[in-house]
């Protein structure tokens, strides 16, 4: 029972924070998000070359930093606080976990470490709601390997991904395939998200894949991947909320109404106390989830779903009140808190809403 960070983890955090403050200031970040491409290649290269952070979770044998889940959590939180739009979660968390679990994919893992590969995770479909377990997209065996047919909805990062990680049904079993973004028969229709990232709806029309495109197979492998992704999304949320709370405290201390800083009003004080409390509880839930990723499947899933419910509630409470306490200023695109609020809103339902995870938790608790 120990909840302290190692010196290495503290250094990782400080280095990342410093780097992002310099290289991805809020205005730079927003310019990237609103550029034609929607992201910054130079920042991405810098994360790889200057910091080596893209391989934080990749094994040393594949050229990565060989970090554990806690290292990845530390990185995710800082990236959340920076409101990064580039696909770290999709690439360095999900991509690295899938390729790592598949085994023998050193070349592709090296491409993650170097920044040459950018992934998108294509699990959702128009009719899937939040359930990743039963995709309608079909994988059919062919002489040369596989053929994919189907449609995926709201695939975040797809417009700037080099590869898509695609869930598909092989008979009754879900499986995960690695598909090049330039594959014949794959068409994307891109659009922005409310949090400044980009997404696409994807159509797979008889996309031919080699044998080696199959990365993972089976419900547990898919669930585990989603749980890892959700846990790190939770860590990202902590960074997002931390900035909202800090900005709200600063703003209310500075902003004067009726002759005093509004931070002096008891009702607003208690609201900020509750925001702080929600953040502390969300942090606690994320720690449990991250520390349970290698536990037995049911324990891992239970910790992750409990975390997502806690984090979703905290994102809503902290986000809404950050806007409210900023008053009119919170309702402008100019102030960064409104961007963090939108990111928090997306995180609430990404990889499953609070309702969805509460039920998953209840079902797992009953089974236990």
């Amino acid at each position: 029972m120990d909840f302290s960070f190692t010196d290495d983890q503290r250094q990782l955090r400080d280095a990342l924070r410093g780097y992002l403050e310099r290289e991805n200031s809020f205005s730079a970040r927003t310019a990237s998000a609103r550029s034609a491409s929607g992201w910054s290649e130079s920042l991405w290269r810098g994360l790889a070359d200057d910091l080596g952070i893209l391989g934080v979770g990749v094994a040393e044998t594949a050229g990565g930093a060989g970090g554990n889940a806690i290292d990845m959590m530390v990185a995710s939180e800082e990236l959340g606080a920076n409101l990064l739009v580039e696909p770290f979660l999709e690439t360095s968390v999900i991509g690295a976990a899938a390729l790592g679990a598949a085994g023998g994919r050193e070349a592709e893992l090296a491409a993650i470490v170097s920044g040459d590969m950018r992934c998108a995770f294509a699990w959702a479909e128009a009719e899937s709601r939040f359930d990743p377990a039963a995709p309608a997209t079909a994988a059919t065996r062919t002489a040369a390997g596989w053929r994919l047919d189907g449609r995926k909805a709201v695939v975040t990062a797809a417009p700037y991904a080099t590869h898509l990680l695609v869930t598909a049904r092989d008979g009754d079993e879900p499986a995960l395939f690695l598909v090049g973004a330039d594959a014949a028969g794959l068409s994307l229709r891109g659009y922005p998200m409310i949090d400044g990232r980009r997404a696409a709806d994807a159509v797979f029309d008889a996309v031919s894949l080699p044998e080696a495109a199959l990365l993972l197979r089976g419900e547990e492998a898919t669930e585990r991947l989603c749980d890892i992704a959700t846990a790190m999304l939770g860590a990202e949320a902590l960074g997002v909320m931390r900035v909202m709370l800090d900005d709200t405290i600063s703003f209310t201390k500075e902003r004067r109404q009726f002759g005093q800083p509004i931070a002096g009003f008891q009702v607003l004080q208690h609201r900020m106390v509750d925001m702080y409390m929600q953040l502390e509880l969300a942090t606690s839930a994320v720690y449990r989830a991250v520390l349970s990723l290698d536990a037995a499947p049911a324990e891992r899933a239970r910790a992750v779903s409990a975390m997502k419910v806690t984090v979703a509630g905290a994102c809503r409470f902290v986000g809404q009140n950050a806007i409210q306490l900023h008053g009119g200023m919170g309702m402008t695109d100019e102030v960064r808190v409104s961007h963090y609020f939108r990111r928090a809103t997306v995180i609430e339902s990404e990889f499953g809403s609070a309702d969805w995870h509460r039920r998953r938790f209840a079902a797992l608790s009953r089974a236990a």
Partner: protein
Amino acid sequence: MEIAWSADEIAFRDEVRAFLAEKLTDELRASGAHMTSVYADPGHARAWQAILHEKGWVAPAWPVEHGGTGWSLAQRYIWQRERIAAGAPPVSPMGVQMCGPAIIGHGSDAQKAFFLPRMLSGEHFWCQGYSETGSGSDLASLKCRAEDDGDHLVVTGQKLWSTHAHAANWGFFLVRTATLDRPQQGITFLLIDMASPGVTVVPTVSPAGENIQNEIFLDAVRVPKSNVVGAIGDGWTVAKYLLEFERGGAAYAPGLQIDLDEIEQFAGEVRGDDGGRLIDDAAFADAIAQARIDVLALEVFEFRAMSDASAGRYPHAIPSLMKIRGTELQQRITELRLLAAGRYGMAYQPQAGVSAGPVHFPHADGGFVGPREAAIAPMRYVSERAASIYAGTNEIQRNIIAKIMGL
């Protein structure tokens, strides 16, 4: 006590329905139904106003001699219900509901003769110049100053949160003409032609990426004193008068009921968490039922306010209570809409709705993905965060009620 409408009121309702059925075009209906916020786009709002103007129904609450309808409070409530239920866009409130009453109550005969008809016809499209940086809820601390220069006032300062100022040709402003002991003193209510030299409108982009609000910069703007409403220095009185003009007619419930109908219909078309349709999901159905129950209580609260006001009573806490509860429910219902939208509620697609102003950030132009309802949901959710902030935050409203309660 009687909760039913009278036979006369039902006849009136039928007349309203017939009018709406006849005059409301599909395009106007769509502009009301697919609004991305509570604001209609100025173009459709003006088109609809022209139709209402022909009928004489633009300003129901005004005295008949100025173009009002002579309706009872109940009729005005019925009109609002039916208008909202039919999906008609709202007429911009800045002229008819705000500046109009100020001129009616405190304006000169010349002002009445010049401005009121043009307000009704829509020739003048109004915006408001009240808030400033640092003077939001604490409005009386405003600093925008107007110096006396003979027949003119010369106005210099800055104003915030001016809805549709980019589309307006006239604005009503609160400016400071004197600095006295109480900050409420020395404020003047002034009408400014937005084409005046020195007026600059700078768009404020909302978190949803729309330009509805604006910042107005006034740089030595010369305004004839004939544009002062009431006396110089009496602006606070005029502003209070206009706020109290339309008591008893507030109606959040009808719009919220329509919102819930839309969401329920939408939820009947999309998948829920348990594999069936969302509307059959127990937790979602429960949340919808709770919202409907809360709206039903608010509706009777509105009826009671209307009944009290008709009888000449109007407890002072009522507007604040109604604003708090109405906006809280409004916001909660945008959450239900977002929940129904699922993953498509994460996409930024203002082009799927009818925006109330220019849209700023990059967005795909050729159509949209997912159901239209899902595309509108995040716009409404984000935009409606303003509901608990504008017109005195809900915290300020609670302070007001606490004072009335003697705490």
